[in-house]
């Protein structure tokens, strides 16, 4: 709770629901979410498969819109924003990291980062961002020439290079083994610590929750638990 009081409120969600309509069938993915996220926090989102984690993250990141309820980013109402406002929001404030990296195969590591820095306001240099994830040596390799862990670190560098206010990571270690996963988590931890970026991290591994400032648990579209983690452990101590 301490952190929540000290830091600025970044996201505020009230009564968020999301219902997917597939023909006649309605699939409720979120059933009323209230959530506040603060600057500088590292939040881990846990929950069983299908509980709505990705849906929530995508709404926060401006990739999707809720069926009802409200989300505020600082004083911007994301629920009322149009398609181009959301694009601008993602462009200026959000960094994404996904399970399958989603790098551009035709661009090198450096250029995959540059593709974002070229359209940002006050980015770091691509080389700097890559150095931050310890990839200073592999600048001119294409994704196909990098390992999964390295590709994921390029994705992190790409996400943080524009100095975003928020870093949203959906199962960033999902496709990696535990050892490589730790390297990736260390990179995220370093970014969160050194740049003070609000980081939200979805995972299936309860072990990873140990590195969080706060753990939020979802089940069946509800938040069933939100607890601070006073016994925060560095990423390199984790394993699963």
């Amino acid at each position, binding site marked *: 709770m301490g952190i929540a009081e000290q830091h600025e409120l970044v996201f505020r969600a009230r009564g968020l629901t999301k219902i997917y309509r597939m023909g006649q069938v309605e699939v409720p993915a979120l059933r009323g979410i209230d959530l506040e996220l603060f600057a500088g926090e590292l939040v881990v989102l846990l929950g069983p498969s299908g509980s709505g984690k990705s849906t929530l993250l995508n709404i926060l990141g401006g990739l*999707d819109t809720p069926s009802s309820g409200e989300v505020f980013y600082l004083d911007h109402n994301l629920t009322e924003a149009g398609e181009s406002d959301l694009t601008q929001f993602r462009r200026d404030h959000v960094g994404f990291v996904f399970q399958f990296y989603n790098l*551009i195969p035709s661009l090198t590591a450096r250029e995959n980062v540059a593709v974002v820095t070229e359209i940002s306001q006050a980015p770091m240099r691509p080389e700097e961002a890559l150095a931050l994830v310890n990839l200073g040596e592999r600048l001119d390799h294409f994704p196909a020439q990098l390992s999964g862990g390295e590709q994921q670190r390029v994705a992190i560098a790409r996400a943080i290079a524009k100095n975003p206010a928020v870093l949203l990571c959906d199962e960033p270690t999902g496709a990696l083994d535990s050892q490589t996963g730790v390297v990736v988590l260390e990179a995220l931890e370093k970014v969160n610590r050194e740049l003070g970026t609000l980081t939200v991290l979805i995972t299936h591994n309860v072990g990873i929750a140990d590195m969080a400032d706060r753990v939020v648990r979802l089940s069946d579209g509800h938040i069933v638990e939100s607890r601070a983690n006073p016994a925060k452990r560095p990423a390199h101590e984790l394993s699963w």
Partner: protein
Amino acid sequence: MIAALNVLSALDRKLLRDLWHMRGQVLAIAAVIMGGVATLVMSLSTYDSLTTTRDRFYRDYRFAELFVNLKRAPEPVAERLREIPGIDRLETRVRAGVKLEVAGFADPITGMLLSVPDSGDALLNGLHMKRGRMVQPYSGDEVVLSDTLADAHRLEPGDRIAAIINGKRKALRVVGVAVSPEYVYQIAPGSMFPDFKRYGVLWMGRNALGAAYDMEGAFNNATATLARGASMQEVLDRVDAILGPYGGTGAYPRKDQFSNRFLSEELKQLQTTATIFPAIFLGVAAFLLNVVISRLIALQREQIAILKAFGYTHLAIGWHFVKLVLVVVALGVAAGTALGAWFGRWLADVYQETTFRFPYLDYLLNAGTVLMALLVSASAAITGTLFSVFRAARLTPAEGMRPETPTVYRATVLERIGLQRWLSAPTRMIVRHIERRPVKSLLTVLGISCACGLMMVGNYQKGAIDFMVDVQFRQSAREDLALTFIEPTSGKALHELAALPGVMHVEGFRDVPAMLRFENYSYRSAIFGIEPEGRLHRSLDRDLQPVRLPASGVVLTDHLANKMLHVKPGDLLTVEVLEGKRQVAQVPVLGITQQFLGVSAYMRQESLNELLHEGNVLSGAYLALEPGAEQAVYAELHERPRVLGMVANASAIRSFYATIGEFVLFYNLVASLLAGAIGFGVVYNSARIALSEGGRELASLRVLGFTRGEIAYILLGELAVLALAAIPVGMLVGIGLVGILVQAFESELYRLPLILNADNYASGAAVIVVSALLSGWLVWRKLGKLDLVAVLKTRE
């Protein structure tokens, strides 16, 4: 639909859903196949219709196989001709060039009056009566008109016209309107195009015409059929031997008969059209199918592997994709056949109206033609996709479950030479995409450029005709009026003509039929003697500059010299005059001239007179008239008995443009439609494939905050580069295609100039730009529907 789906196998249902899913691409490719099939069906069905009609017409109306003109022979000579072994039937006729008068029409009309027997039907060259009846035996003034002339002047049985026969006016009564196998294509001697208002053929009883033309008991034309197995050359030689003393100008076979010759050339062109254009379309369609099916198979790798794992055979999988291709082909062939039949019917009508006259023209769409279209399209399509389908069929389940090895990208040439600083990351993506698949990019460029090329070919005709008309009438035959005398006339006649009010300038000419020989080559033609520095009638060199005719030598049209007689300047040409004293002389070839219509041999008039051992004698004259004086001069000359015929250039050009208007419209429309189909087919498919291949990348970029415009730049930028590259390539393709046409259509009747003007190039480029914009717009709409979230959930 649902019920229908249930009876299908699961795999066939997949096929239908795949097709439905790719419906835009399927339609675009089917449209390209349609273009190929339409041109194929159009040309072949028109070809079939024309040949079948022609053959039937020739057979039913006993079209002759041998033709000969002579000055005059007494009728008994015909018996000697009939005795020549190999002659089956022979018929003599009287044939008279006349001037015609039709009430209310002031321009000169020339006609060819032919005799029909007074007793019984004509043995050969029967007439098909369209209206009215045949002339009655021994009637004095009845004539049957060719339908072209009758239609052009709305003349009907019962109407009256007049003819100047041998300098004497004769009133004639129209009793019928007919078509003849001998005059399916009608054009006045010495004129450039058919002019139905100013030239026509008429038939009259033998006695009446003989009396009017001083040919009682004599003939000046004979036609014959040959007995089975007879040697044409031997018969021709014997006919010439007999008729030589009677002024025979050389017998010739049906294949050299003008109307038939022209018809054959046109049919040959249809065959060329039936080969070149479908080949282009089907080649492009094969390429597109290759790209689309390869992509589909790549996308369905895992599905294929799973089907295999469940026990589907190689053959079943291969056949599945072949069926998919065949459905596209079937769509294209069905649409193409319908469109081709419509084009064909239209083209046949245009032919019938403007060029060829048959008693009937049965439009014929053979099952064989459709079957051929189907076979050709299917084999092109299957050839195009064979390799991909084969790979899909051979894919082992284990292999298919593994992701495909990732594409390897490299820094491009542009970057390796140090330009990367100037390229933004999106621009680098464009360049790398293009460079990664050079062959595909190249084929795409070629495919798009075909659209440009086809468009240029379609619009080529108009410019070429303008050019030919310009060369012919504004540079070469610049006279306002060409007139021929009834027989060679003293050069003094020129003074008389020059003195007529309204005549500004006069030049005389002498022409004489002649056989030209060089080594083994020979050609029956005429020698034209003109003034060496004439202002009106001139021959032109390769650069279309007037040439000053050299003294005592002959100058030949390039086609005649190079392709027919194989002579070059300096060679000695043997000239056998086919008239009068029938001189034979060796004449040096002194130059080559360029001419698009017909072929000719030119000499100085005085040199020709010398060759003919005669004084200053003329066959006719070219006149330049004061503007506005035309009608008065025509009227004046019409009254002169020595003037046989007149051709007025300005009105000839006008009527020509009126008749070809429809042809030009037809070809422009067909070309635009088909070029559009190709252009759109290639660009749209490339765009959709690029979208399918790059969709994930682009969605990822959207997630990162790129706008729709920015990702569109990456996707459409690549296409724009290819489309722009296709413009110059397309222009080269256009030049190449026109070059092929020019080559293929080259004959002694005419040669098309290789002329492409700014309009042609612009229309070619426009097709590309329009197809690119249209495809771009469609893809732009698709980009708006990219599912950003979906790509994040799946592995590549």
